[in-house]
């Protein structure tokens, strides 16, 4: 799981163009939205595209999004259970 979390951090930095950040700057358990990284709804769309492209995951239920994207750790947990590649 640790390896997946580090991989996700690097992918989030790349996809969201967080130029001044390194994986070490991201707390895996910190909220991604509002506080923490301060991401917004467009970033969610970018992350949804990233999950499909990198892990073959298509989110079919939008209501799950809030829980899945709460933090890097929750994304990693969801990816580990649902990844297709």
């Amino acid at each position, binding site marked *: 799981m640790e390896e997946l979390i580090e991989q996700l951090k690097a992918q989030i930095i790349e*996809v*969201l*163009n*967080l*130029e*001044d950040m390194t994986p070490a700057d991201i707390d895996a358990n910190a909220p991604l939205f509002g506080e923490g990284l*301060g991401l917004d709804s*467009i970033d969610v*769309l*970018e992350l949804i*595209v990233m999950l*499909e*492209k990198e892990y073959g995951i298509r989110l079919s239920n939008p209501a799950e999004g809030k829980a899945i994207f709460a933090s890097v750790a929750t994304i990693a947990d969801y990816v580990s259970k649902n990844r297709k590649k």
Partner: protein
Amino acid sequence: MANRCYIRSVAQVSCQQPLCDDWLSAPLSHDGSYAGAVEPQTRGVISPGDARRMGKILKRTVCTAYSALTSSGIEMPDAIVTGTGMGCMENSEKFLTDLVLNGEHCLKPTLFMQSTHNTISSLVAITLKCHGYNNTYSHGALSFDSALLDAWLQLRSGGIASALVGAHDEVTPSLARILEHTHPEYAFISETSMAAVLSAEAGEGPAVVVEDVRMANNWTAEDVAAYLGDEDRVIIAGTNGNALNDEPYARVLDALDAPRTVLRYKHVFGENFSAPAMAFYVGATLLTRQAMPAFLVEKDGGHGAGAPLESVTLLNHAGLAAWSVVRLRRL
């Protein structure tokens, strides 16, 4: 009586030092047929959170708009009018590459949202929270002139009191390779981002006005020459040293009955669909500074060294029979 249209400020990002007039005394020289823009510092102008979603052209646009507005003393223009030939080219390329490589299922929303032509003008409006008139013209090498004509007419008629007018084009290396084939009349390709603040009221400092803006798509060289009057003594032309480009200008100048001083600018700022905006920038700068550096002079028509520079006429040939003439005058 129509209002005057004062040029309150101009700002540029190009292959010269950005957001300054260093090019007047120390122009950067570039080897080869293509040079990208010198990027401006965005820190202090664009927050890191906003900047991460912006492509280069959007950052340059915000920087030139911010610089021009700050210099003009006008915080909120009544209108934002923009010209661009190709819009957000870099994002368009990335989006289309994703489409080819990954199909339609994994397209990035930011690239989709920020790859249209009118993204540029609307982003400035969003950044300024400007709810006024906002329009984008994409008419090849007449894009800037079209935007200028729109703002000029509205200012002259009293419809608006101020406008942020600009032209922006980014040229990626792959687009440069394409342009070298599709536009053999080009000599030196580069990128342009230019913003100007126009106002019905004069600001502090020298007063320079846009006296006339005229576009035509059915003019012969003789028609252009006939439109140019005796007062058009100093002409900033779109010549670039390439005979394919320069021949129409030569025919116009040959048809004039008196010698004119001809200045050029494309060897300094490069060529793209927004390049004519740099003629406007150069003209406004020379009139304000009362300068005429020797490296701009293509033909000396008897304008004496040190003589007051009262007006400049911008002459832009946009292919076939399409021309624009813009007169700038110092009051």
